[in-house]
């Protein structure tokens, strides 16, 4: 038996497109293998190339890919999704293990599109709030126009504690303003010795948030992050994602902070 060629993508059907903003859509794709939140697929467009995209939701026979239109490959996805299929390879990476968080108090802090790779975790605990001691979702977006997953927020608000904030409000907005870090001091966390913090977002946001969580008393070993790096192959060959002795595409993108803090580009 020859092994399957890992570079050749498979066709997946687009079953639904959810528009969040002008440049951010969720593509619901047919996929029926094992997959975890925080893992990613390479969306592979002949002629244009490939883009690693996180799994932002897991359904029955589907995965969600929330894609931001920023360049060659992603532009083409937006312009041609009417073609109703996309080529994919994956899933790759380790992803988040829900089992690590069960029975604990969980604080999830996400910045912007950083919500995508952790959305599966929020979905899970929103559907099974009894599986943890408490769940707080603290999310920041740049402006009200950049808000993602608005419909999901309506559901989450009923089951878990949700704090949403924007950096730059507009005249119609009457919610929280400012950076996510502003809301950390006032959070009531019971049992800091085993409370879990999950932090995903732009590098600066992750750094500040981690510092604040450590200052608040979270244990390093209870903090989890997801790292984004340049990727090409997704399977430990091309070298682009390597940091020190770690391949983000194989060993990550999800890291416990005790390991993640040592990653230096």
């Amino acid at each position: 038996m020859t092994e399957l060629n890992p570079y050749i993508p498979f066709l997946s059907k687009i079953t639904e497109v959810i528009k969040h903003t002008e440049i951010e859509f969720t593509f619901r794709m047919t996929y029926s293998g094992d997959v975890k939140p925080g893992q990613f697929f390479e969306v592979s467009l002949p002629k244009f190339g490939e883009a690693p995209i996180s799994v932002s939701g897991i359904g029955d026979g589907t995965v969600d890919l929330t894609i931001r239109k920023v360049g060659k490959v992603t532009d083409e996805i937006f312009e041609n999704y009417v073609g109703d299929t996309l080529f994919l390879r994956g899933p790759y990476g380790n992803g988040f293990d829900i089992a690590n968080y069960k029975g604990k108090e969980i604080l999830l802090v996400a910045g912007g599109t950083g919500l995508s790779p952790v959305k599966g975790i929020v979905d899970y605990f929103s559907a099974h709030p009894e599986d943890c001691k408490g769940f707080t979702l603290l999310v920041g977006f740049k402006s009200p126009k950049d808000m993602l997953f608005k419909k999901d927020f309506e559901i989450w608000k009923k089951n878990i504690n949700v704090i949403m904030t924007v950096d730059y409000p507009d005249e119609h907005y009457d919610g929280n303003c400012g950076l996510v870090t502003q809301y950390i001091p006032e959070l009531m966390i019971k049992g800091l010795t085993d409370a879990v913090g999950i932090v995903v977002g732009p590098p600066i946001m992750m750094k500040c948030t981690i510092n604040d969580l450590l200052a608040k008393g979270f244990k390093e070993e209870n903090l989890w992050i997801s790292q984004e790096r340049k990727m090409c192959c997704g399977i430990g060959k091309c070298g682009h994602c390597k940091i020190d002795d770690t391949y983000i595409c194989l060993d990550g993108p999800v890291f416990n902070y005790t390991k993640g803090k040592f990653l230096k580009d």
Partner: protein
Amino acid sequence: MGYQTTAEKINAIFSDLSKDYLIYAPKRFVGDGTFTYIDTIRYGEITDLAEIEFAEKSNYSFKEVLLPISETLFYFTENEMKEADAPKKGAIVFLRSCDLHGLKRMDTIYLENGGVDTYYKRLRDHTKFILMGCENSFENCFCVSMGTQTSEDYDAYLKVDGDNVLVDSRWDYLDAALAGATQAPVIADSVTANDTVVTIPETVPQTLFDDPFWEEYGNRCIACGRCNFVCPTCTCFTMQDIFYTDNGKAGERRRVWASCHVDGYTDMAGGHAFRNDKGQRMRFKVLHKVNDYKRRFGTHMCIGCGRCDDVCPEYISFANCINRLNTLVNDTVKEEN
């Protein structure tokens, strides 16, 4: 089994083998070097022993046989993908002991790290390796420091000695072909010392990543990537899609060599890149070669061939960098105690 035979006999065997194999060896390309009056020695196909450059080190390594500079992965039309055919013939590669160790480094990445690479494996499975001995160390070699000066992992060892050719065969086909030849004990030539000696720091603390030490390299390196391209253990690539202009819908995806010294290696959407500073790229490469790889896989990545030092247009010496880094690490440890 060891044999003493003639060039004529070996060339006849090559001729038979050429039905199933392409034979690659270092060849001299006259006036083709960095400067027009300098020759390069790089890999090419041969049919005769006389074409092989035994006396000098090759400027480029054998890696392009297993990892072509540009390799088509598959052909596509809008809705179909077809794996590119493997070459019809296998390959026979002449290489030196250090390079055979380099082969293992490539195997580790392409057959083990994260699973098997289809394209590498299908070439690797049909390649035979013939060791060329080293009577003397070449300039900039530090194989002895890296422990790569001898290797047993060859299909054959071959030495041209005047009119005689000495062969140590570990390949049934060759044993059969040499059945009539004089048997003789043959031991591969290898060096026991090099002029260049490196001492590798066991660990390099992260606090030294930003040390001014690297700035000097940042000022000198012009990010040409040649040190990566000549290195037998640099295996990074980037994928590219090409489409045929006469039919906008059909094309192919290729992979091409990539270099961690060259701009764009870490570019991400949004214009964010890591290691913009060339000194940091030097740090990244050096520590990969003699620290990170070992922590992950148990052996150093660098095999001490010295080709990076031979090629650098800015006269940056990797070997010298390691030794200076070792001094810096020792001084830092002393200061802390």
